[in-house]
Structures are given as structure tokens and as C-alpha cells.
């Protein structure tokens, strides 16, 4: 494992039973991870979702992931809080002007095809609000 600091995007799914445990606290304190939460929906007595960036060495990130997995919590490390349905997208580009990070962008100047770089998405949900064709949707 390298000492290089990297950043990973996680989406955690909390089943009803574990939604009140202080997992983020332990990620920071015990595993030296810098945590940036984009979006959370964790309601007591209900299942919850949390989308976050974790920054740290690969070893710390791996340990943090192993720690999270000791609970009944599902980690999706490909970041799927916002989904774009390429069949519903018409590539009009309305979303591009509202996307603050450029995750949605004009991928081809000649054809005006709209591209989506999931890694740059901070899940502000602006695309969901402005898309007239419901091409963007939230997992939760």
C-alpha cells in the first residue's frame, strides 16, 4: 500500500438497525480520514444513505472500508447517488449551465453531446431540478 494520499467517493447504505452508530466519527478519529459529506439522509428508525468523499492514504482508506464493513452497512465505492439515464437524456445542455463543478459538460463541440463525469459530481441535485426529461435521478 502506498503512502500517497488519495480521495475516494463512497455511498453508504444504512439499514434501519445501524443508522444511529457514529461511523463517521471513527473514520476520522481512528483511521485518519478527511471526510467531506455531500449528501445524507439518515433518519432515526428508518434506513439511510450517506454520500461522502474520504481522503487519506490507500492503507487508511482500506482500513476505514474494512471498519465500515464490520457493521451491517453497504459501501458502494463507485458513487451512485446521482444517476444519469443516457436513454432519457436528449443532450440539450440545459443542465450544463447549472452544474457547478462541470461534472456535466459538452463532451463534443461539433455534435453537442453532453458527457457526465461522475467523479466530479458533488450531488447538489441541480441537474435533477432543471432536467425537463427526468434524465437525472437520485438514488435516494
Amino acid at each position, binding site marked *: 500500500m502506498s503512502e500517497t494520499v488519495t480521495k475516494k467517493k463512497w455511498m453508504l447504505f444504512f439499514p434501519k438497525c445501524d443508522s444511529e452508530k457514529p461511523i463517521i466519527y471513527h473514520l476520522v478519529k481512528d483511521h485518519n480520514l478527511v471526510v467531506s459529506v455531500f449528501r445524507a439522509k439518515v433518519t432515526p428508525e428508518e434506513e439511510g444513505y450517506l454520500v461522502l468523499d474520504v481522503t487519506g492514504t490507500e492503507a487508511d482508506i482500506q482500513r476505514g472500508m474494512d471498519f465500515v464493513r464490520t457493521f451491517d452497512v453497504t459501501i458502494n465505492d463507485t458513487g451512485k447517488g446521482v444517476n444519469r439515464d443516457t436513454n432519457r437524456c*436528449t443532450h440539450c445542455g440545459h*443542465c450544463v449551465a447549472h452544474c457547478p463543478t462541470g461534472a456535466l459538460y459538452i463532451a463534443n463541440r461539433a455534435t453537442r453531446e453532453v458527457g457526465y463525469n461522475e467523479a466530479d459530481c458533488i450531488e447538489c441535485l441541480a441537474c435533477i431540478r432543471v432536467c425537463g426529461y427526468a434524465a437525472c435521478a437520485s438514488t435516494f
Partner: protein
Amino acid sequence: MKTYQQINDRISSGKAVVLTADEIMDYVDEKGVEAAAQEVDVVTTATFGPMCSSGCFLNFGHSKPKIRMSEAWVEDVLVYTGVAAVDIYLGATETRHGDPCNMYYPGEFRYGGGHVIEDLVAGKTLQLFALSYGTDCYPLREMRTYFTIHDLNQAIMVNPRNCYQNYNVAINDSEKPIYTYMGTLEAKRKNANYCSAGQLSPLLNDPYYETIGVGTKVWLAGAQGHVYAEGTQHAGGGPRTPGGVPMGGAGTLALTGDMKRMRPEFVRGVSFRGYGISVGLGVGVPIPILNEEILRRTCVRDRDILAPVVDYSNEYPQNTGKVICHVSYEQLRSGEIEVEGEKVIVGSLSSYYKALEVANLLADEIRRGDFHLAEPIAPLPKDTVMKPLVAREKP
């Protein structure tokens, strides 16, 4: 000089030379207008975007016993029954029964007429609920049933206004976000939206309506339809650039086509947050290259087409007609325009990507000999202007 007949003969023989309006400029730059006009038979133009003034006539056939529908809903969307017993008109912008609309502002408008039209073309099973006052010849008072487009006798799209020649660029001068048919506009000119295929758009490639007129055959969402009249609000008489390109809305087309032959990817329900429902349509129009002048006009480029920037927080709703400035489609497509010295981020409601797809599909159909051109039976007026609605005292 070529005639429609000569071009159609070449299409029949599979020898027609067809280019899209996106390809023709470079082709003409390389070959020269004279040689290119000899060689090229057709230039295909296209657009894809929300086109509110759209809808369809449906005929359900007769039930046993018969009903003369006096009120009806398809998927809880109200349709117009004042036509005949089982003929209805379904409008693209109609909201669904029970939708709170803008009561909880801004409303979401998740489903309405445009979505019913999309579902119909996609072959989905839909609910019809109809009521009647009952007559001696049509005794049934109520009907609830389920149908697909294949069960209907006719499903004919009839769109009073499509393919605006040019359009406004919408901006918001106010201190709060606004929700319009031109999309969401952030406060203090933070973003601008436009809605045109620019250099690919049908009427921008034939600015004086020399080949596009009543009777012109068009590609309407995959079906072979035609222009049945000038579009509503058609106003060809407005200001133009020295090159002849209208600097505002100008011309429109009224289009019709058989929905049973349409492709669902080119008929798409649209929800405008805080505004309402529309339908996104793909339209292709072939331009016959009858002479050099017609070819020269199809070579229009985004940099030659100017669109008016209009404030949608006050000037548009109050119908003042004020235009802040004009910007070119080349500037709009760069993603940023300058309005009174300030940079503004630009988004689009019209899809150039899908318009290109339409232009290429139409070009392929013509090359295969599956799509012939029709000569207009009447021209579109060039000199009309738009009249306002005047609130008058009772005479």
C-alpha cells in the same frame, strides 16, 4: 436550375446527392457555389426541442352500446371532446387532473399531455375515462377502458406551431430565481437559455420561405408528415440581418403526421419546473437545391444568426418588447455570452445532438429513395407581423 421533378427522379433512382445543413457549408467552401448547386440535390435541416403548440387527434371507434364523449381523460389528462362522438384532441401542455401545478411553487409538473403523447407513441397501455350526458343514438353514460395506439383507428399529430424560425435568449434581471418555459433562470443574470438548432434549423436555412411552404413534406418524429398551414404566430415581416436572417421569432410551421409511424425517441414529454408541460419533438425538413441562391442560403452559419436577449422576469411577462442586445449562435454555443459587459453562462433547451441525428436520418431516407420531396401548394407569408391581444371595453 433543377425542378422538384428532376430531384425526385434522382431520389427514385437512388442517385440523389444529399448533405445535411451541418455539412453543406464546408462542402460549398471547397467546391464553390456554382459546382455545388449542380451537384447537390437536397440539404436536410432539422431541430429537436420543446414545441408547446402540439397535440393529436385520436379516434377510438365505437363501443357497444355507443357513447358520445362529452368529457374525457387519458391517463387522467383532460382531452378536448367537442369534436365528434369518439374523436378527441389531446394537447401537449395539458396538466394531469389533481396536479397542484404552482400551488406549491415551483411545481414539478411530472406528467401531462406531452408525456401521454410520448407513452402513446411508445406503444404503452393507457387508460381512457369518458363521461357523457347520453343521447338516443349514444346511450352509454360512462366508459373506463385501456388501450394502446394500435387499438385506435387514427392517431394524427396536428401541431399548430412548430419550428420557430429563431428564438429569444432568456435571462433573469430580478433578484430571485424564476421558472419559465425557457427553463430555470437564476437571479441577477447568472445564466441564460436559448432554444434553436441555429445553423441546422429548417427556417433559418430557407429564411424567405422559398422552398418551405404549405404542402412541404417533412420528417415529423420519424413519420413522413407535411406542413398543413403557416404556423400560429407566424410573422415573417420582422427585422432581418443584411444576410436576410430574422433577428427574432419570425416564421413558424403548422405540422401534421401519422403518430403510428413515429419513433418514441423523437417524441418526449417535457416537465418545466414551475411552468408546466410540453413535448420535445424532432423535426426534419428537406430543402431542394433548385438554384444557387437557395444553396447559398443553406450555408448560413451560427455566427451569422443573431438572437435577441430578453429579460423574462419583467420585460417578457409585461410584453414590453424590450431587447437587451443580440448575440450570435456561435457565441451562445461557446457556453458564455456577454450582456452589457457582464459574462453570462449559457445553457440550451434545444438539442443540437438530436437535431443532427434527425438531419442524418432524413438524409439517409432520401438517399435510399424512401423519402421524396413535395412542392408547396402555397407559400408562407413574408410580410405579416404579430398582433397583440387588446383588453377592450364592451362596445
